[in-house]
């Protein structure tokens, strides 16, 4: 038996900081906050185990904190109750994905919480898959958007492989919400999801991302330790098995484009490689970076044109036109090597060589004024315009099965 859900209403202006640590020490932190802590007058829902019931009641009453009992006996036994728990959670947190601030930059914890909220609010459409762990042991999550079927052809999107490119993770969060908002409302996205699955990895490099928040805003690489070097990290976009180790990457561990000791040495990369291989039915793969406003297709490691060069170029042209139609934002497009620079061991060169024909990389806003430090007021406009380009690619994928 899980316990009791208390709804706690603050009458006295006690600060959250003041109350909760005390409560925590009092009942050994076995409280499960279902909602809040919010502001002063926002009720907080707390799940209290039976063992702690008496202590919590005494604490609340002696501090004149008004409470009411919402559910007096939460049962738990099997899957049925797990569903029940989920539904209850949904009921008591109905507004969280709606009140989430999409126009600001978030921490890793906030984004991971968002994912859970999104899944909880849309259990029939979204699920969360752990595809591995980062070097420092953080879980690596992918959101799966699916309306059913078994291993349907799929579209893969990833953001945040380079941790300092904050506009990408922020856009990824927005894309996730956009998908759930559009299903059943936008005919095109609905038909995409009725035929294909979408996988979205929002924080592809969680160690790097945490580091950009705590220590170095300009950190790009993973946080793996390099044998024999004081320098940390491997460039996850040089670590793939496509032209690995060539000139378009560095063999120096101190370099920002260090390719690593061998292909897929990075857990963050290996996790995706394993997922893609075992899935076997991914039809489009889009990896998102910033900045310089580009839409790129293979190859980066060679100037030899990809076999599907013309088709990819046509898709890119259409996608860029769609993007531009919203605010006039100008993108260039072309193969990686001609448009940006030679890059060896890059993600989409590998995915393309695996047979995923519609492999693209974006470099989002801007063109250099703010660079990695893009103001938060550009998050939603960037995400919105990019979405139009993504829809173009996804629609094309849906309409051109192979």
């Amino acid at each position, binding site marked *: 038996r899980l316990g009791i859900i208390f709804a706690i209403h603050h009458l006295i202006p006690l600060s959250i900081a003041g109350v909760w640590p005390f409560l925590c020490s009092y009942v050994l932190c076995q409280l499960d906050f279902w909602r809040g802590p919010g502001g002063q007058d926002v009720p907080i829902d707390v799940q209290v185990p039976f063992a702690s019931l008496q202590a919590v009641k005494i604490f609340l009453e002696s501090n004149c904190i008004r409470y009411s009992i919402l559910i007096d006996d939460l049962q738990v036994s099997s899957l049925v109750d797990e569903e029940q728990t989920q539904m209850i959670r949904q009921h008591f947190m109905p507004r969280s994905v709606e009140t989430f601030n999409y126009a600001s*930059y978030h921490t890793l914890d906030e984004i991971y919480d968002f994912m859970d909220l999104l899944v909880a609010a849309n259990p029939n459409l979204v699920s969360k898959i752990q595809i591995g762990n980062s070097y420092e042991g953080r879980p690596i999550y992918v959101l799966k958007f699916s309306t059913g079927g078994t291993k349907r052809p799929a579209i893969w999107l990833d953001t945040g492989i380079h941790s300092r490119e904050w506009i990408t993770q922020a856009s990824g969060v927005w894309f996730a919400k956009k998908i759930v908002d559009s299903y059943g409302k936008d005919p095109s996205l609905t038909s995409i999801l009725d035929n294909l699955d979408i996988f979205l990895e929002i924080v592809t490099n969680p160690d790097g991302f945490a580091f950009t928040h705590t220590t170095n805003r300009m950190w790009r690489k993973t946080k793996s330790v390099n044998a024999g070097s004081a320098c940390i990290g491997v460039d996850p976009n040089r670590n793939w098995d496509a032209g690995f180790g060539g000139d378009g990457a560095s063999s120096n561990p101190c*370099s*920002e484009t260090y390719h690593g000791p061998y292909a897929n040495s990075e857990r963050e990369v290996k996790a995706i490689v394993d997922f893609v291989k075992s899935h076997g039915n991914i039809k489009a793969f889009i990896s998102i970076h910033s900045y310089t406003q580009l839409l790129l297709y293979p190859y980066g490691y060679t100037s030899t044109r990809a076999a599907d060069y013309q088709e990819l170029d046509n898709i890119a042209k259409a996608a860029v036109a769609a993007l531009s139609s919203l605010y006039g934002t100008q993108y*260039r497009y072309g193969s990686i090597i001609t448009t940006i*620079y030679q890059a060896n061991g890059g993600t989409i060169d590998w995915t393309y060589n695996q047979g995923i024909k519609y492999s693209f990389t974006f470099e989002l806003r801007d063109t250099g004024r703010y660079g990695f*430090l893009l103001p938060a007021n550009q998050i939603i406009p960037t995400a919105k315009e990019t979405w139009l380009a993504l829809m173009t690619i996804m629609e094309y994928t849906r309409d051109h099965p192979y």
Partner: protein
Amino acid sequence: MQRQSAARLGPLLLLLLLPLAWGKGPSPPRAAEELQVSNRLAGQAARVALHYLNYRLGSPSALRALGQVRKATLKTIPGIGHKYYLQFTTEDYKSSLNVGTCLATVFYLKRKPRPAVNINCTYTKDQKQIREDDYSFYKKMRQQTKPIIGNDIPDSYGNIEPALEPAWALAVAGSSYLMWEKSTENLGYFMAQVKNVKQWITKDDSIDFDYSVVLHEIPTQEMISCHLRVIWTPGHPLKVKYFCLSENQWSESEEGSGTESGSTNGIFNEKEAHF
């Protein structure tokens, strides 16, 4: 014997020198290649031209950013270098509004440390407004009794405090000098962040700032820390001294206008003969 060889040599020498006299390199004929406007080297060269322009204009209110490359041609001059002929649109650095078109040549010479730039631009922004904005910043800085200081501009979230925005713009102008100097055909730069700004209160007419900036280097992706000293009086060439952590000594801008490395005219008035 010697006089005979000299006589034979004479016309030969003249023949060799003739192309040089016309400003062309030694034969064989140069390869001229039209580039796609999305070509990365064309974009890179255009940015170099703008670094040079922003430095030479020396005006925080007149900074330009690259809009789009409209036309690009590359001439290879064997043994000497690569010369880019470019036409591109520009945007106001602050507002992103289109402010005119430029024609530029960017010459990456094998034996010179920095690219030689010639650039002519049309300008649709109000020159009077620019001068007023510059002077207003200048006056404000001259009136400071306590030196302006600041950190992390923009901050992690892209915010720039309005009061520090002109100092940031001056850092862009100063960094433009350094980015022009450091640029090669394959190495390009963006100013990623001002880590630190400190004003020096001076008794003379200029305003004087110390900056620590971080440059983003392409394609290496390295973040280069540089120290910058910028001395400015509106209407005068910017004086810049810099020291980047990968270097061993300070580098300094020349005083006075017109260096052999390039030139710039305020208003575009040439025909597009060489395109």
